[in-house]
């Protein structure tokens, strides 16, 4: 079990996170917040790249910095900016990282080949990575994170720059890996985590806003989300009056999805709120979007 107790992080005078309390058991956790909200800061503390200014992070009851390499041995990490040597082949690069992870040379050979198969790179193990697409590089990133069969797998914005097909493939891989381990997946793309995360964590104003299931978080907007078909001439008025979640054009009219606590009009259709609705609602005019904590 991974626990954060009253964790704060400051960079000089700037407070990135404040009094974070979290608990992670086996399962997939989606860390969902806009860019600049402090996701990467939180993740970097979880992977020991940053040290909390205040508070403690414990794994199975022991502070992670005192566990030192024992903690890092159970850790798999895919950073937001996955670094690699473009003249290396995935096989060579994974062998290097296996050495850094202290894995046995012969065992890691087998493991590397299994993992590259798992992420669909079995036929390019000896091709230089400079020829790889963004999706292929990201899959190398996942393979390296899994090298030591980690108990805690932390992926920071793993789908950034991937096309929808690659993102689908990525979610499939994650589902395969999701047994018997903690997976923390940070993203600002709701669809990346909506279907696979056991729990969603949302950060706002430097603290944890929600840590709950997709259903429960979505339920916070129950009976408040509506869809309505409006003429273009009414669109401006609707925008002024309600918080619009989405708009789509349908023939001569626009279908808008919006939030209101007002008495609903008969023309409106009440809809089941989604995680995306909550995300858009929560982070509308959010000042963390202007932040720069990484």
């Amino acid at each position, binding site marked *: 079990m991974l626990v954060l107790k009253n964790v704060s992080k400051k*960079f000089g005078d700037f407070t990135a996170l404040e009094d974070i309390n979290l608990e992670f058991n086996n399962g997939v956790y989606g860390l969902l917040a806009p860019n600049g909200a402090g996701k990467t800061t939180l993740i*970097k503390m979880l*992977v*020991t*790249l*940053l*040290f909390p200014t205040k508070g403690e992070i414990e794994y199975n009851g022991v502070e992670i910095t005192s566990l*030192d*390499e024992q903690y*890092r*041995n159970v*850790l798999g*990490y895919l*950073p937001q*900016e*996955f*670094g*690699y*040597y473009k*003249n290396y082949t995935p096989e060579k690069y994974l062998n*290097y*990282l296996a*050495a*850094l*992870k*202290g894995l046995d*040379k012969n065992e890691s050979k087998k493991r590397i080949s299994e993992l590259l198969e798992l992420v669909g790179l079995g036929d390019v193990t000896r091709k230089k990575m400079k020829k790889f697409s963004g999706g292929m590089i990201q899959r190398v990133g996942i393979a*390296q994170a899994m090298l*030591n069969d980690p108990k805690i797998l932390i992926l920071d914005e793993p789908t950034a720059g991937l096309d929808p097909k690659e993102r689908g493939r990525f979610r499939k891989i994650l589902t395969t890996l999701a047994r018997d381990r903690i997976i923390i997946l940070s993203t600002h793309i709701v669809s990346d985590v909506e279907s696979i995360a056991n729990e969603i964590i949302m950060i706002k104003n430097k603290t944890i806003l929600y840590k709950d299931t997709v259903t429960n978080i979505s339920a916070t907007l129950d009976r408040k989300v509506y869809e309505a078909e409006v003429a273009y001439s009414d669109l401006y008025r609707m925008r002024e009056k309600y918080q619009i979640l989405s708009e789509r054009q349908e023939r001569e009219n626009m279908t808008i999805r919006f939030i209101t606590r007002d008495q609903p009009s008969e023309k409106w259709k009440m809809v089941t709120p989604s995680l995306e609705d909550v995300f858009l609602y929560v982070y509308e005019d959010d000042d963390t979007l202007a932040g720069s904590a*990484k």
Partner: protein
Amino acid sequence: MRVIWYEIRKLLNWKVLGLVLLISLLFFELFLRFDFEHFPNGRPLGDIFNVTKQMINKYGQEMDEKEFQDFKETYKEEVDRANAYLQSRDDFVEAGVTTYEQFTNMDYEDKVANELFEEVMFEKGIDVFWELQSREVIMESYEVRKEFFKGETAQIDDPEWKRKILDGSINEILPSFVVENYNNLITMLSILIILSVIVVVSRIFITDQRNNTLYLQYTTNIGRKLFKKKLIASMITSFLITNMYIGAFLILYSFNGTQIFFESSLQSFYANTVNWLDITFFQYIYITIIGVYLLAFVVAAIATYLSRTVSNYISLIGVQIPIAVVLILLIFEYLVSNLFNIAYPMYITIGTYIGLIALGAAILTARWRKERKIDIV
């Protein structure tokens, strides 16, 4: 060890080795080839070189007063040979030059005398005349050796040290140009080694910083200890580079044929400088090579530190240029060339080495302490 090996292989990639090879070839052509190919450089140095080698074969490393008398006898025999040569030449007889003494006292303003001299010395290059000239230089050096030493060391108040040299190694045979040739070569070689170490080792952290692999490296089992592993890799790499250069250098230098002087003291009667240490030429070579290794390690330490702390290639180059310039100047002054020369107090030489090593150790220790608690942002 596996990680260190990987790091070394990363440093020694073929592109970098190609660049180092290019720098080495350029350096060899510009600064080293001459001292290998033209040693001893012309006449009479070549003749002096041969005569001094004959002397060692005959007298051993040292020539005492008795042996000096023998050397003078040999000189006289050579004079007789020169006389016989001159007397065998009608043109010299006709010009009234039948002895070596007359030959050396010829009026070179005179066209005929000058032509005769040019022919003997340069066109035909008659060995005995060059050899005699060489022997005269050697005899003169030997005769004034003590005065020269006393003059050079007049400011040094250490009678015991002076007495020891005057009673011993000042009689030894080692032409100054042999040491100068070695000094030229080892100086340029050490500069080449330093530049190569900088080029190769400077990449140790910065490439990983630039392409974000540090995030991965620092979250693995090795964690913050990566700094130590990379430092060891830098040191081993600089050791390998230095070994390679020193190895190649010693092979090439062996063709200069100076081995016969290895056991002679640097304080020989033919020395044109005085050293604090009364050591043999071989010991001097040994010490300068140790000095080169130390400098390579210091440079590797500084390059590793800067590679970790500087954020881009331009800054890394910019910071290292003044460091390299200062080191090169010090190498020229006393760190390798003229090591232990009395031109500088010995504590300056030793102090500079200790200072450089202490500086390297201090910045690395400070960095290692910081490394354990620094945020990797």
